[in-house]
C-alpha cells in the first residue's frame, strides 16, 4: 500500500519533468536565439511550431525542393502538379478553427495558393497572418464546379465589400494547393529569397 502511494506521489513529478520543454509558439512571438537553424533540422516535433533564430518552424525540414515563384506556380500549375516545390510568400489567411491550412499570397497582386496539412499534423496560429512563409509541399490542382466557383467569388466579394453578380462567373475555377511538408514563418521577408 505504501509503495502504491509512493508511486502516486512521484507520478506528478515525472509528468512535470516530461513536460519541461519549449512552450508552443502559438502566439507567433519573435524568433529567439535559443535554437539556431535555418531549416528546422534541429527542431523538436511540435505541432504548434518551434521557435528558432530563423523563424517559427513547422513540420519536416525544408530546403531540398526547388524554389518556385508564386506567380509562376499559379500561372503554370499543370507543369508542377505532383512535384515537390518550395514557395515564399505572404501569409494572407489562416484556418481559424483548426489551424490546418494557411494561404500564401503576393503582397501586391491576386496570386494566392493554399498550404494544407492534415488536421493536427501542424497547427498554424492566426497570428501567422501578415508574416512571411517559406513553405514546401507537393503541388495539387483543386478543380471547382461552376456553382462552387460562384460561391467562392461571392465570398471574396463579400469580404472586400464589392458587388457581385453570379452571372459574371462563366468558367469554373481551379486553385493551387500544396500538400504541406514543412514551413518556416518569419516576421520579415528573407533577403535572399525575395517574393
Amino acid at each position, binding site marked *: 500500500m505504501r509503495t502504491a502511494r509512493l508511486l*502516486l506521489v512521484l507520478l506528478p513529478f515525472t509528468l512535470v519533468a516530461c513536460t519541461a520543454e519549449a512552450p508552443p509558439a502559438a502566439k507567433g512571438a519573435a524568433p529567439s536565439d535559443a535554437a539556431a537553424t535555418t531549416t528546422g533540422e534541429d527542431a523538436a516535433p511540435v505541432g504548434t511550431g518551434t521557435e528558432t533564430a530563423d523563424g517559427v518552424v513547422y513540420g519536416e525540414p525544408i530546403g531540398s525542393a526547388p524554389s518556385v515563384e508564386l506567380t509562376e506556380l499559379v500561372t503554370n500549375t499543370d507543369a508542377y502538379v505532383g512535384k515537390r516545390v518550395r514557395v515564399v510568400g*505572404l501569409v494572407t489567411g489562416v484556418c481559424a478553427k483548426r489551424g490546418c491550412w494557411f494561404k500564401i499570397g503576393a503582397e501586391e497582386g491576386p496570386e494566392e495558393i493554399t498550404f494544407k496539412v492534415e488536421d493536427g499534423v501542424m497547427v498554424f496560429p492566426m497570428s501567422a497572418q*501578415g508574416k512571411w512563409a517559406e513553405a514546401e509541399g507537393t503541388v495539387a490542382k483543386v478543380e471547382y464546379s461552376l456553382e462552387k466557383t460562384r460561391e467562392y467569388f461571392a465570398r471574396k466579394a463579400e469580404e*472586400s465589400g464589392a458587388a457581385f453578380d453570379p452571372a459574371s462567373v462563366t468558367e469554373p475555377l481551379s486553385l493551387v494547393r500544396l500538400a504541406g511538408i514543412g514551413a518556416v514563418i518569419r516576421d520579415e521577408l528573407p533577403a535572399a529569397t525575395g517574393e
Partner: protein
Amino acid sequence: MRWRRLFRVLHRDIGYLLFGLVLAYAISGLAVNHVEDWNPNYSISVSEIDVGPLPADGGLDAMEAHVAAAARLDAGEVTGRRRPGPNVFIVFLREGGEARVAVDSGRGRLERVSTRPGLFETNFLHLNHLKGAWTYVADAFALLLAFLAISGIVLLKGRAGLAGRGKWFVLAGLLIPLAFVAHYYTTR
C-alpha cells in the same frame, strides 16, 4: 480481498490526481465537438470602419500608414499589408485580425482576433498539438483512465457490484456506442 482494497486506494488517489486533466479534457471535448458552430480557440469581432480614400501616391507604405493612423491601430500592431486587387487593401494585425478597406472610399471592416484564455491552451493539450513529450503524458493519462474504468467496475461486491446491477449499466454503456457503429455500417 487485498487486491480489492489496493484497487480502491489506487482508484481514489488516481482519481484525485487526474481531476484537473479529466475536467480540462471534458471541457475541451465539448468545445471542439461543436467546432462547426463556433470557434473554440479564437474570439473574432468585426466592426465597420471608414478611413477615407487611401493616398494615391507613396505606394503600399503610404496606404498602410494611412489605414493605421485613421483606424487608430496601436504601434507595433501591424504585421503586414496586401493589395490583392486594384481597389482592395488589407492591413494585417498582430493577433491574426485585419483591416480590409476599399482603396477608393476607405470603407471596410476591422476584424480583431483574440485567443480564448484557458480554452485555447486546453484545446492544444487535448488535441496534442504540442506533440513531443506531451504525447507520453497523454498516453499515461489514457492508461490511467483505462485503469480507473476497470478498477471502478470491480470495486464493489454484492448487489451493487458488477455481478449485480452493475452489469446492466456496463452493458448499457457498451450498447450505446455499439448501436451507433452498427447504424453507421448498416446505412452507409
